[in-house]
């Protein structure tokens, strides 16, 4: 009886000693695991996006990158870089955007935050491109009209210079349509990319690429499939959602003038029946189109 108890005590003591040694180790491991888990989400996303294949067989062409001028005047300057670019527009866009994100040598000239990643990119048949960036683009960019405008401009102008197939650009953040980039710039619409719609740009950078097209035909379809959820709301014509139906189309407008003779339906909160202005004759119908 007493011997059995002594054995029991011995075992328990052993257990206590083992636990005293092992538990701190376990604790350390768990902390490490927790840290790894946090990193891995961002990392996994990066790994998903990284394999934008840079095929060495692609001809090296002169790609034009638009980065900031670097003297905080809010202007972009173009830099010509020799890159092996694919002739497939989607692949090519991914390549130039990743180069743009990777940034210039001079940090002062960055337009996009270094943490931001391009998650997916595709081009709709009507020439609207959809670029999906990671959240870092919205969270890490300096807030302000100038800085946000510079970021979007650098994206659209770089695409314009290198991918003539793209007419408009829709920017998503992590697969979602967002209202603003970082509090100022409107992302609900599309940005005009190719201002010369009729004549696709024939910049020297582009013209050399089609000739060298042993482009891996197997690689391009794989990459053109969007990796993240496709945005269901990407209106192809660039009309922002929530276009109000405006029920009263009863007033026929004699003037074919411009988009509408109908006042914009007021936002919630404004008094609807204001339609004021006894100014009966608008002498200067300063219509925009």
């Amino acid at each position: 009886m007493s011997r059995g108890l002594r054995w029991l005590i011995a075992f328990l003591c052993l257990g206590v000693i083992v636990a005293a040694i092992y538990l701190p180790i376990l604790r350390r491991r768990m902390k490490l695991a927790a840290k790894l888990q946090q990193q891995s989400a961002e990392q996994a996303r990066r790994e998903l996006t990284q394999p934008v294949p840079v095929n060495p067989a692609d001809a090296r062409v002169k790609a034009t990158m638009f980065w900031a001028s670097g003297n905080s005047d809010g202007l972009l300057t173009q830099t010509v870089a020799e890159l092996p670019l694919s002739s497939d527009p989607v692949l090519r866009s991914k390549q130039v955007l990743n180069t743009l994100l990777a940034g210039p040598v001079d940090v002062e000239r960055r337009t996009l935050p270094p943490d931001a990643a391009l998650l997916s990119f595709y081009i709709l048949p009507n020439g609207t491109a959809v670029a999906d960036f990671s959240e870092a683009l919205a969270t890490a960019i300096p807030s302000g009209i100038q800085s946000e405008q510079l970021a979007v401009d650098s994206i659209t102008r770089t695409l314009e210079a290198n991918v003539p197939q793209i007419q408009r650009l829709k920017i998503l953040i992590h697969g979602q349509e967002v209202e603003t980039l970082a509090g100022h710039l409107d992302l609900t619409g599309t940005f005009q990319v190719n201002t010369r719609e009729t004549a696709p740009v024939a910049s020297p950078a582009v013209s050399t690429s089609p000739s060298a097209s042993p482009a891996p035909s197997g690689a391009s379809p794989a990459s053109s499939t969007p990796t993240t959820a496709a945005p269901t709301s990407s209106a192809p014509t660039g009309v922002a959602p929530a276009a109000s139906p405006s029920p009263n189309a009863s007033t026929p407008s004699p003037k074919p003038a411009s988009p509408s003779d109908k006042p914009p339906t007021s936002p919630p909160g404004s008094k609807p029946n204001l339609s004021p202005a006894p100014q009966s004759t608008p002498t200067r119908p300063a219509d925009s189109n």
Partner: protein
Amino acid sequence: MLTHAWDRREFRLALGAASALFAFASLAFSFQVSTSTPSQTPAAAAPAANPPAQNPALQAPPASRSGLNVVVLDPAHGGTDTGARGTGGIRESEIVLDFAAQVKRALEGQGFQVVLTRQANDNPSFDDRSAMANAQLGAVFISLHIASTGLPGTVRVYVNSDLPTNTDPSGLISWDRAQMPFQPLSRKLGDTVQGLLAQKFKGSPNNAQAAAVRQLRTTAAPAIAVEISSVVVDDRADLDRMAPGVADAIATGVAMFKPSYVLPSNSPGGTP
């Protein structure tokens, strides 16, 4: 007798060992709990944005005269949204509120009625802010910002970039593109104010820039955004020193713009 005493001692020892083990086990469990919880906190900490807007009825003065009467001043951001933040702790949302007070005084000196989209540290939505201008008769809308980039000591005026032409077959303009008919007027106001600012603040551009500013898109009035550079200055006083010049340029600019304020035919003011 002896064995009995031994028994008791051993029993006590065993009890002690068991409780020690239990203590370790509970300690280990608590580690597990503490390592698993942090991943849940960020979601819970998501700020509740958009507190209810102020009551516009308190501020909306009845405008009886025609033409330009009211200037709606919009100190951007506020509440949980601090806007641009400098390393020195400068917050855009606080500074624009102070700027707005000075601009308001300057505008009132020129005889304009002034409405602020916010008067405290709250954050009305973009639509609520636009609605304050849209509800006014003969208003212009001026949104005030502090940039986080740009040459310190310069000021830039932005107008909404051209909205894509309306493809709605009915030819109606939806309210979320209410700025469309006002774009030429906004451009004129923006260029006027920017020209005055360029005289006071060297290094500023001479003409207003176009940008897809969300706040301006839903505003059915001539609308501009004025952005002052920048929150990177070490001392807030550097920005405060600019306030009188900015206020004066805006007030003078609006006064100069007033004669050319003619409502476009397809605006809410143009149709009976």
